[in-house]
């Protein structure tokens, strides 16, 4: 096989892996949007916040230590212990569930029946609040996240492909893990929402609030459940991205990459989020590989948005979104 083609395949594979990570973030958006019609701008910051919390708990950092030290004049930073990754992940999940409760109790409970744009603005406020809270609790420096996920080149793939084609593919172990985790997560979420009692209640709330109330579903409970699940998805995304490029502010910006993914896949479809993520991941890598040179490079920065724009013109509901029909 010609080298160019092999290289293109490698680029595609890497694009798929990157796409999985986009999809993970987009998934969080879809979950909340489906259940409550809220476009949660804070989803990216939730990933940042959960990753920072995870690192903080693992390292035994004292939350709000700067604040405490400034007020009390003490100099404490660490508890002096290290928490194993699994336990720390569970604790972080606890924090995310608490956050889900707090967000509903203190923000959205007071905004029931408001215009979507107001809810959207509230999530922007929430994003900045969380960002500040994250800095205040754990400090704003770039942190290294290591929960023991394998990293670096996968040597088996390298070897096998080298023997087959005379060219070894470079695929990162972490990307493979991320892909596997994402697939499991999506299957689990789909099964859960299709076949469990809460899943059915969740779909019911997404469909019609009044009807859901009339069959005995507590909207509040469902919203907390949904935000908790979105928090969990954010945590997974946070761990993957954090392990890849460190826990830092730019983590919250991946949320912006999730936007074109949603436009492609449709805001209301879980499979859409996955397929959209993959298309964007592969698309931007291949585009950079084929035409990037001609266009002066760095096309990855804008390719996704242009693709989304084109989609908006021809299929505004996305690939899998619910068709918008207005009856007159």
């Amino acid at each position, binding site marked *: 096989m010609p080298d160019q083609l092999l290289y293109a395949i490698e680029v595609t594979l890497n694009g798929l892996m990157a796409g999985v990570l986009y999809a993970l973030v987009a998934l969080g958006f879809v979950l909340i949007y489906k259940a409550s019609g809220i476009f949660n701008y804070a989803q990216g910051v939730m990933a940042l916040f959960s990753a920072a919390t995870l690192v903080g708990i693992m390292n035994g950092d004292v939350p709000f230590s700067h604040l405490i030290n400034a007020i009390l004049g003490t100099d404490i930073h660490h508890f002096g212990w290290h928490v194993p990754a699994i336990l720390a992940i569970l604790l972080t999940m606890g924090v995310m569930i608490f956050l889900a409760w707090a967000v509903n109790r203190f923000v959205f409970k007071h905004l029931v029946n408001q215009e979507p744009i107001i809810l959207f603005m509230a999530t922007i406020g929430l994003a900045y609040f969380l960002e500040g809270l994250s800095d205040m609790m754990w400090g704003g420096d770039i942190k290294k996240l290591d929960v023991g996920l394998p990293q670096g080149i996968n040597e088996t793939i390298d070897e096998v492909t080298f023997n087959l084609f005379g060219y070894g593919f470079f695929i990162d172990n972490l990307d493979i893990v991320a892909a596997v985790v994402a697939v499991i997560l999506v299957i689990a979420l789909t099964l859960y929402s299709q076949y469990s*009692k809460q899943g059915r*209640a969740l779909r019911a709330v997404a469909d019609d609030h009044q009807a859901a*109330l*009339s*069959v005995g579903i507590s909207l509040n409970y469902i919203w907390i459940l949904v935000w908790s699940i979105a928090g969990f998805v954010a945590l997974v995304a946070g761990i993957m991205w954090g392990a890849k490029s460190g826990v830092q502010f730019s983590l919250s910006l991946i949320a912006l990459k999730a936007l074109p993914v949603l436009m492609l896949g449709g805001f209301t479809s879980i499979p859409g989020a996955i397929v959209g993520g993959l298309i964007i991941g592969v698309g931007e890598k291949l585009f950079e590989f084929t035409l990037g040179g001609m266009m002066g490079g760095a096309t990855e920065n804008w390719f996704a948005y242009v693709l989304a724009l084109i989609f908006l013109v021809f299929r505004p509901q996305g690939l899998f979104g619910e068709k918008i029909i207005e009856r007159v």
Partner: protein
Amino acid sequence: MNQMSTEGYTTADGRKIGGVMMEMKNITLRFGGVKAITDISFDIREGEIRAIIGPNGAGKSSMLNVISGFYVPQEGEVWFRGAKRPPMKPYQVAQQGIARTFQNIALFEGMSVLDNVMTGRLTHMKSGMLEQAIWKGKAEREEVENREVVEKIIDFLEIQAIRKTPVARLPYGLKKRVELARALAAEPKLLLLDEPMAGMNVEEKEDMSRFILDVNDEFGTTIALIEHDMGVVMDLSDRVVVMDYGKKIGDGTPDEVRSNQAVIDAYLGVAHD
């Protein structure tokens, strides 16, 4: 009603009606300065088909919304099964065993008929989140049991043929029937029907009347329904409350109500001179 006592009464067609299940005491409901319901009291008895009728804007739907917890009245008390009900959210009312349908149909449009009816069983599912997540033991058993109840109701209402159809594709009359099925699936103690026959043709109305009577007969379900079409209601119900401009103007058997001068005036209009 002379044959009536605290212990209930026997209807003309020989059905035994029990004691008071639900009692509304001096209910007043206001929206801002507008009074939707003014000082209304009435009761609903076990096993009864109770109708609330009145011209458009009489406050019938508001009354139903008070019973089902969607509106909270400013004054008055709601008594259910011998206990005063504290202010409740609609979902809590549903959990108490009061199911309802809506005037403008509130179904889960994106879900199949079967799934819609299954949501009616949610109040009967007791397994926890974790059990549900791993789909073990109680969760699995529960799903099977509830599925059986649901299939029985689907048979009963003759909607087997459309059980897998997404609700959005159904015609109006069938949607109404699916909504009734969902409410019945909860095996409610009290079933509230908000204009079950609105917008239906004669044939559909007859079907719906038959279903309502059958439900009451087979399951012994107590039913409170709202209609503004006098004809259907009179054949269907055991006792009728008549409302006009938010006030109660009549209460009794269909015959009693029919001969009530205030009711006749409200429906036919009265000459002002």
